[in-house]
């Protein structure tokens, strides 16, 4: 049963990609197509970060371990959408014109931190298999705590690229802060109650 449900969630997670494919097909991308595609995948990356970070708090709150079964898949979708987002910027927006891209990475803090977040995602995606969990043992957990930094980087990326923090960058940052704060509490409880 859970297997079919997982497959269903998998296809649901492809929805953001479907939207863009349909937009391209119906030529419905609006006045600034490249920016729309880029923003779309960037925003969905943040949404998937939030979803991934929600799983263990949900487990705590509902006392159901079933949430954790989706965490890896959601995390890999973070990497998937972050990569499409990056490729849109490098390929579609700047046509692999490396000079301005390298300039941006080095000089513009929103690009720098966004690119750093993507780099940090690579080891997480690469070590997501059961096998790697076994090989890395307790190090695996420490390594995957990088997602907290990635989440913060992602929200800073959004704040810094926006002309004003109102309202979407503020909303995502607030959600991420709450999700991270929940963890501090969880840890304290872990200490108190074993």
């Amino acid at each position, binding site marked *: 049963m859970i297997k079919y449900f997982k497959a269903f969630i998998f296809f649901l997670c492809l929805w953001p990609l479907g939207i863009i494919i349909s937009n*391209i097909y119906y030529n419905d*991308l*609006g*006045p*600034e*197509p*490249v*920016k729309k*595609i880029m923003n779309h995948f960037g925003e969905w990356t943040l949404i998937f970060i939030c979803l991934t970070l929600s799983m263990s708090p949900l487990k705590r709150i509902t006392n159901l371990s079933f949430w954790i079964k989706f965490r890896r898949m959601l995390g890999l979708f973070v990497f998937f959408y972050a990569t499409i987002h990056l490729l849109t910027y490098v390929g*579609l*927006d*700047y*046509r692999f014109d490396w000079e*301005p891209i390298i*300039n*941006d990475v080095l*000089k*513009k*803090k*929103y690009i720098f931190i966004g690119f750093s977040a993507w780099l940090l995602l690579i080891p997480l995606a690469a070590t997501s298999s059961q096998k790697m969990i076994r090989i890395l043992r307790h190090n695996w957990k420490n390594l995957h705590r990088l997602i907290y930094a990635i989440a913060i980087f992602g929200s800073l990326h959004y704040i*810094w*690229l926006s*002309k*004003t923090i*109102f*309202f979407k960058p503020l909303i995502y940052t607030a959600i991420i802060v709450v999700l991270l704060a929940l963890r501090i509490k969880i840890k304290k409880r872990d200490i108190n109650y074993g």
Partner: protein
Amino acid sequence: MKKISFSEITPEKIYLKRRDFIKKLGLSTSSLMIGQNFLNNAYASTNNLEPTEYRYISTYNNYYEFGTRKSDPVEKSQNFKTEPWNIKIDGEVENKINISALEINNMFESEERIYRLRCVEGWSMVIPWMGFSLSKLLEKAKPNNKAKFVEFISVYDPAQMPGQKYPILQWPYREGLRIDEAMHPLTTLVTGLYGKKLPNQNGAPLRLIVPWKYGFKSAKAIVNIKLVEKMPTSSWMRSSPREYGFYSNVNPNVDHPRWSQASERVIGSGILSERIPTQMFNGYGDEVADLYSGMDLKKYF
């Protein structure tokens, strides 16, 4: 010059078809301009500019009074009341003026002016405005010799403008120009778009257009023009002085601290079109570079 009412201007559909037709004939836009010259004075025509489609100009707007999304202005401004509308010209002037938008429309003939618009966010459009040089209106007020700057104050009406309920910027929206910039013939008081009345989402009933500066310098829905002695602080300068300077001339060599200004994306040009290089003074250097001779444009950004 012949006075043109809105009804005499070519409707946008025919206008576009005509351009398309002429393009198909293989004629250049400059030959088209000859036919249009009766409409245009020297500052109105800029050759080889293909106007952005009306549907984009009228739906993709930054107008934070109505919200921060690009679609907010068109969605939330349709019931905005632009009549009656009064505009005051005061401060360091001999003649204080209090005039309605209607009177302004009757007093000054609007002509078509096709200008590039470069947004500080890195996109651009080509827009066929209707309007006249702001200097004509300012001359009526007779600025005195203490008038060194001009401040533009937009309307404050949170009941009609939902964005003004939030501290996105300091309301009302304020912008400013140096007096010589304000008196420059390219600086336009806009009354219409595509030969029609100016849509609410584009800043009706009266807005400014300063084509060689980033779009945010061109205040919308103006209610007060103040001639002042000291450099005014604009809403964007107040919100982030490090990022938004008083001058804000389009300049590919001076980046916004957070993003590059070297190139721009052309609105409506499709998914596979490339960025184009941004031009100094948005391509109006021949007309305006003199205003800034000897100034360090990195310092006075």
